[in-house]
């Protein structure tokens, strides 16, 4: 059972990350749910989605105590770090977040996602760098399933970007190891 929250600014690709993990879980014949935060959000605030991947029946799709939090910006980290279950995993984007995690009962890993993405030649794959780190650290879904899911989430006229996205996943995984 894995309950995950993906959060960041609008445009950082956090909804797509969550959707890919849900797709990958479905490909692996697990039960999955994905739900976006929706509501009267302020501009410049955080966008987030909650994803559950489990072999069991899913109770609430809404998560109050996540096992994993992926924070792509500071407001997201401030909001969701305190909610993590003891023993949980926090992955944060250290290119944009200067502070380190504030809890000693969780695993924390900072990934310079924007920097690594820019080195690969496309700053927009920062989310896939973090995805790679997530796959390396949790095994919630397999890398092969994520690659299949990528083909579902990326619209077909963007499939020329499959290569760079896969490269980013690999780079993120290497960094996190």
């Amino acid at each position, binding site marked *: 059972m894995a309950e995950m929250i993906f959060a960041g600014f609008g445009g950082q690709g956090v909804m797509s990350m969550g959707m890919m993990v*849900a797709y990958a879980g*479905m490909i692996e014949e697990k*039960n999955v749910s*994905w739900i976006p935060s*929706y509501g009267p959000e302020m501009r410049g605030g955080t966008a987030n989605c909650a994803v559950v991947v489990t072999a069991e029946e899913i*109770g*609430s*799709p809404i998560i*109050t105590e996540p096992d994993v939090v992926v924070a792509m910006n500071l407001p997201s980290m401030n909001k969701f770090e305190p909610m993590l279950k003891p023993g949980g995993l926090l992955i944060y984007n250290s290119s944009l977040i200067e502070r380190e995690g504030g809890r000693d009962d969780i695993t924390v890993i900072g990934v310079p996602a924007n920097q690594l993405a820019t080195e690969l030649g496309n700053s927009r794959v920062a989310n896939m760098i973090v995805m790679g780190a997530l796959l390396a650290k949790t095994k919630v879904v397999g890398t092969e399933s994520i690659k299949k899911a990528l083909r579902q989430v990326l619209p077909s006229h963007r499939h020329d970007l499959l290569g760079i996205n896969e490269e980013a996943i690999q780079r993120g995984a290497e960094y996190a190891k």
Partner: protein
Amino acid sequence: MAKQLMKGNEAIGEAAIQAGCRYFFGYPITPQNEVPEYMSRRLPEVGGVFLQAESEVAAINMVYGAAGAGDRVMTSSSSPGISLKQEGISYIAGSELPCLIINIIRGGPGLGGIQPAQSDYFQATKGGGHGDYHLFVFAPASVQEMVDLIMESFDIADYYRNPVMILGDGTLGQMMEPVEFKAPKKRDLPPKDWATTGCAGRERNVINSLSLVAENLEKHNHKLQEKYRHMKENEQRWELYKTDDAELVLVAYGTTARIVKSVVNKLRDQGIKAGLLRPITIFPFPEKAFALLPDTVKAFLAVEMSAGQMVEDVRLAVDGKCPVHFCGRTGGIIPAPAEIIKVATEIMGGERK
């Protein structure tokens, strides 16, 4: 067809189309906007009509017209929009026309908020508009169940010549889950010989809810009541979960029932013999399910995202045999497992009478 990951609101649209719905009339409102968005794209592909009306009142009257012509038609909205549609819904029920109405509930009253709620239970199950009538109401708890029930709803609507409502909430509309579209078991449906399809070579058909002679109108009411009795007799649906030895039965529907199912497991881990009764039809309310519960049951706890609406039907079904308690949140707040567990523990510890 393989499973697809779909948002609840989009799955509603696809299920309706696969069930033969070819007409959609609606007016936008959060949190169900993906339904009209999906229909506007998909209906023209299958030779259907999508029309965004100038208001909810116009939309429901277009549904009235298309249903009168014998076609499969639907509308969808959220709480304030459904309130605006009540006059038309009453006319449709009075004229005995089949159609599907989706209500993805948001918190009220008034314009309220846009977060999920279940505070339209009374409106959905007790009539809603004026006059003695009922909708047939399903309350699905997952995207897959919503799809299955919608595909069946058009048959049920045709069979009873009655509007069917799907009562969901923002969570169900916004979330993505894997779904599979499976054709439901077909009902034996009578021909729509009442529809206004052009009267060349036959007597005129009239679709109308006006009846000025009191005796005739009473006769019509008797006919409607007979139909609702028939639904109560034949169509009640529910799910029982871990009730075989239960001492506390939690009653919840829709999204709330999923949370309560996790709560039942947590209570059992604490040594409290809890079970769940989940109504799937909320009109007809599954009162038959209560008769199936064991003698071990000492109390009931209704959990809702409202100030306490379904709990009244639970009390009617329990009929004073046990105490019936209530736990609910309003305004768009989803009850957290911890607060339900606290209430359940207090009931079983004798702290709540």
